[in-house]
């Protein structure tokens, strides 16, 4: 690959100012929110470096300086030093638990005098660089060899493993977002689909055990419906012809109604479970028949998905029923199915109260009672979204969501317009980190996701997180600014 050097003026002109402006809006809105979240009636001064908001301003200043320096570094340097950076950071992660003091059960903070840093936040860009470097290797195609998968997954798994050692589960899980990158680069969508489907089956079958439909738990009933719908959907996507979908639907319907009538006439009660299982087996037999007839592999895939789903559903139920009651309780609480207003549930409940009490326009800046009176825990870090929800209302929360949506879509656009695989993969990594943080953080605050303690990028208080995301974003901006200098590839 050949590139020519870029001069400062060109760089300035080619910078994606849209992203920079979004970034500036978000960090400033973040400082204001932190000020509101940690506002104390008695002594209030925004710029005092003793306050969280003042400290955050200092972090922002340093971030801007850092961003500026990152823009000056040539893209080739990032490519060239991707692996060394990755290795150094991984080593840092490895030694962190031995150096870090125990803060609330986690050993992830390295203390340098007055400043504490969390190496896990810096592992984000290092891993992104390493992954981008891997993919930009000569003739590297993910699907070409199984070992390519092994290498890519190793790069992702290593920081997860090291960060889990520091007992920072939330940060560790962040790296799972990179599987989206693998998907973009060719990994079968079935992997993501399978993961998503497993989660759905797991949650639904545990959550909806009550009322009974057709003498089975309502969760099971709906899962059977979902599985059938999935089979039909997959058939349509792979096969692109109506005939087979129609055959399956008609056949199943006739079978179901026929059995029903027969049972009614004979006065026999057929359990709903048995009926559904026989429908799925019937469908699978038909699909296998089609597979043999047409030599199309996807029929096996669909039949396999159906059978695995049903097996998984029953094993989840079976395993869950055989757990100790307190273990069941823990799982239910973590999934947010059980109200545990004293423990984990307390935070989520108070956080929902804070957001819910904001109404359309909010209670006004610095007027939030939930946050001012400290009902919401960690309100200047992980639960910063509560302050916005309470004081700025639905308008505020929607605005913040739109900012994130704009940033993520913009980063995806930047990634897609990169001429190099390195740039594209790196861009996707950045986008995926943002997607993960956005989904999990806001999801947990509004009670849709389990509570996994990760910050809301640019809003939550914390230097490491701010620096981590700033580095991620500005390296991408630098790569993007230099994209036109790529002469050949």
């Amino acid at each position, binding site marked *: 690959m050949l590139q020519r050097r870029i001069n400062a003026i060109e760089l300035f002109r080619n910078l994606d100012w849209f992203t920079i402006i979004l970034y500036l809006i978000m960090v400033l809105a973040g400082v204001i929110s932190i000020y509101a979240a940690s506002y104390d009636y008695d002594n209030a001064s925004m710029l005092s470096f003793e306050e969280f908001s003042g400290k955050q301003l200092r972090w922002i200043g340093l971030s801007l300086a850092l961003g500026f320096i990152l823009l000056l570094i040539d893209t080739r340097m990032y490519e060239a030093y991707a692996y060394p950076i990755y290795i150094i950071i991984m080593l840092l992660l490895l030694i962190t638990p031995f150096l870090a003091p125990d803060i609330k059960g986690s050993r992830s903070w390295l203390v340098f005098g007055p400043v504490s840093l969390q190496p896990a936040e810096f592992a984000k860009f290092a891993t992104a660089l390493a992954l981008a470097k891997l993919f930009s290797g000569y003739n590297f195609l993910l699907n070409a060899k199984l070992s390519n998968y092994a290498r890519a997954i190793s790069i992702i798994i290593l920081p997860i493993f090291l960060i889990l050692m520091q007992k920072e589960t939330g940060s560790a899980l962040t790296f799972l977002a990179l599987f989206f990158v693998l998907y973009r680069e060719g990994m079968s969508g079935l992997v993501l689909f399978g993961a998503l489907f497993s989660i759905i089956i797991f949650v639904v079958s545990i959550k909806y055990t009550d009322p009974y439909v057709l003498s089975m738990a309502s969760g099971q009933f709906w899962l059977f419906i979902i599985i059938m719908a999935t089979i039909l959907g997959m058939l349509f996507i792979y096969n692109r012809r109506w005939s087979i979908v129609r055959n399956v639907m008609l056949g199943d319907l006739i079978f179901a109604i026929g059995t029903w009538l027969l049972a009614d006439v004979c006065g026999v009660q057929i359990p709903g479970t048995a009926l559904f299982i026989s429908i799925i087996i019937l469908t699978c037999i038909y699909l296998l028949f089609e597979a043999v007839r047409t030599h199309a592999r996807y029929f096996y895939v669909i039949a396999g998905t159906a059978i695995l789903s049903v097996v998984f559903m029953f094993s989840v139920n079976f395993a869950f029923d055989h757990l100790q009651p307190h273990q069941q309780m823990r799982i239910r609480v973590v999934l947010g199915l059980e109200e545990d207003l004293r423990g984990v549930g307390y935070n989520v409940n108070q956080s929902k109260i804070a957001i819910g009490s904001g*109404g359309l326009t909010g209670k006004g800046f610095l007027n939030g009672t939930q946050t001012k009176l400290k009902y919401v825990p960690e309100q200047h870090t992980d639960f910063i979204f509560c302050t916005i929800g309470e004081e700025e209302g639905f308008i505020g929360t929607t605005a913040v969501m739109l900012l994130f949506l704009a940033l993520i879509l913009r980063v995806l656009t930047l990634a897609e317009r990169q001429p190099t*695989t390195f740039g594209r993969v790196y861009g996707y990594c950045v986008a995926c980190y943002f997607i993960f943080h956005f989904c999990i953080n806001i999801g947990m605050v509004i009670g849709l996701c389990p509570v996994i303690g990760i910050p809301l990028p640019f809003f939550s208080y914390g230097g490491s997180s701010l620096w981590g995301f700033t580095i991620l974003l500005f390296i991408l901006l630098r790569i993007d600014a230099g994209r036109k200098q790529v002469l050949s590839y």
Partner: protein
Amino acid sequence: MRKNYNYAKRKYVIGGFIALIAIIYGIKLYDLQISDSKYKESADSNAFLKKTIYPSRGLIYDRNGNLVVYNQPAYDVMLVPRDVNQFDTIDFCNTLNITKEQLLKRFTDMKDKRFNPGYSSYTPQVLITHLTAQDYGRLQEKLYRFPGFFIQKRILRQYNIKSAGNILGNIREVNAKDIEDDSYYTAGDYTGDLGVERSYEKYLRGTKGVEILIRDANGRIQGKYENGAHDIAPISGRDLTLSIDVRLQQYAESLMVGKHGAIVAIEPQTGEILCMVSAPGYDPSLLVGRERGKNYKALANDPEHPLYDRALMSSYPPGSTFKPTQGLIFLQENIITPGTAYPCHRGYINGGLRVGCHGHGSPLALKPALQTSCNAYFCWGFKNMIDRRSKYGSSANAFEVWKKHLVSMGYGYRLGVDLPGESRGFIPNDKFYNKFYGQGGWSANTIISVSIGQGEIGATPIQIANLCATIANRGWFITPHVVKKIHDTIMPPDLTRKRYPTIDAHYYPTIAEGMRMAVTGGTCRKANLPDIEVAGKTGTAQNPHGQDHSAFIGFAPFNDPKIAVCVYVENGGWGASFGVPIGSLVIEKYLNGQISTARKGLEEQMMSSRLSYTSAKKKK
């Protein structure tokens, strides 16, 4: 060629995924923030501690301005259950001088919905009531060690007199029913029980105030919400001035010591009750504070029923005190004229029926009949009225007329006294007798005893006293009442309005004169005071359960009555033996302020005599 075009489409899947998530979150936020208002309420109940400020309860004075009932602060230990974490129970118990078991018992009781239907872990609950001043002081200093606990100031009643428990009543903690009936109350509040405390509760209690405090997540109070702009100041209860003369009340009570019965004295012109004794009575201070429950139980289980207000609730046969009503009815119905005389040969003898009487001249006119309390006279009058078919058509119709007159005089229905629990007494109607004897199966002789206040007739001492006041006024009365004035407001019009019985006023002087004669030369001679013109009427009510009841009504001075009194002593024998002396002493005391030396002996005799109520059963 590196760019992998096959997979470029997947950017839409990823972009679509994030857009979908954003939409789901947007819907959830809409649901949380806009459609559901419960979160706003939760936030407010989190942040704002609404502390009730109790108003001071109205004071009670007697008619002469003497303070009778006043307030004393008391302190309750309150807590908000969900704010209470682990605390040092031993320290807590030592501070309040209670055992750990007692504390645990209080916690269990507090959470028991049967005792405390308003229990909620989010609202303040009463843990211990009525701290002593020392306990209060000690706890106040250590309160910071017990988050979630606070001290609520309340009001206890204090009494300057040991009498008039039946009039004053007392206050008690509200029960589940009170809370249900009146949204003003919350658990731990106090409400009036019995007496004027109950009937004037709405005036006495005032209006509660609210102080809105800001409370943080640790239960610490961060100050007043918007500097108290939304606070509501409490409004003190209104003071009451009773019509009761405390000195007279105490004197009358002393005369009733050792006896069961009642004294009611009314100022005729105003209907104000000057004293109202129910004997035996009780000291109202017994029903205050921590010992209230125990004392209340003891009083309620007392075989002499001190909590039962005999003056107001007991339906007695009025006996001969009923005779003036009969005279009035017969005059009004033109059955007799003041000159009409009826024979009496030691009784009323008619159709094989004999109602006994005592020795006096015969025949008699109305006034001498009242003077001598002649039974025969009123029996004849009654017979002539009830059996006068030419006028009324039937005995039943005549009886209805008779009854209506009595009702207009305040018998048979509640008078409307401003105290709770008034009994209506009993005046039968024609249907009552029809049911008993069959349609037309009865006549005057069948029910002759009602004419002399016996038989089915029942009247409360207050109704009897009211009759006396009506005669004193020569033809009208005002509903008797014990409250003279509610401060800063006007009295209910029902307690100031003159009520006129259906008897023409010009018939009353005859009756009054007959009663005056009873004092000067009849059955009430013991009431003949040298300096006060008293008019009176005795009553000796036959009592199927024992010795006769001794009754007396009287008013004085004769030409400008200031007091009308009714005395009713259960099983006291002749009206002259207890009724007349006690009644005359009350009159003398009220009008002269003291008892003349000549009558000190009588006073002493009345105060020291004791009637036995266990052996007096079954005599007649």
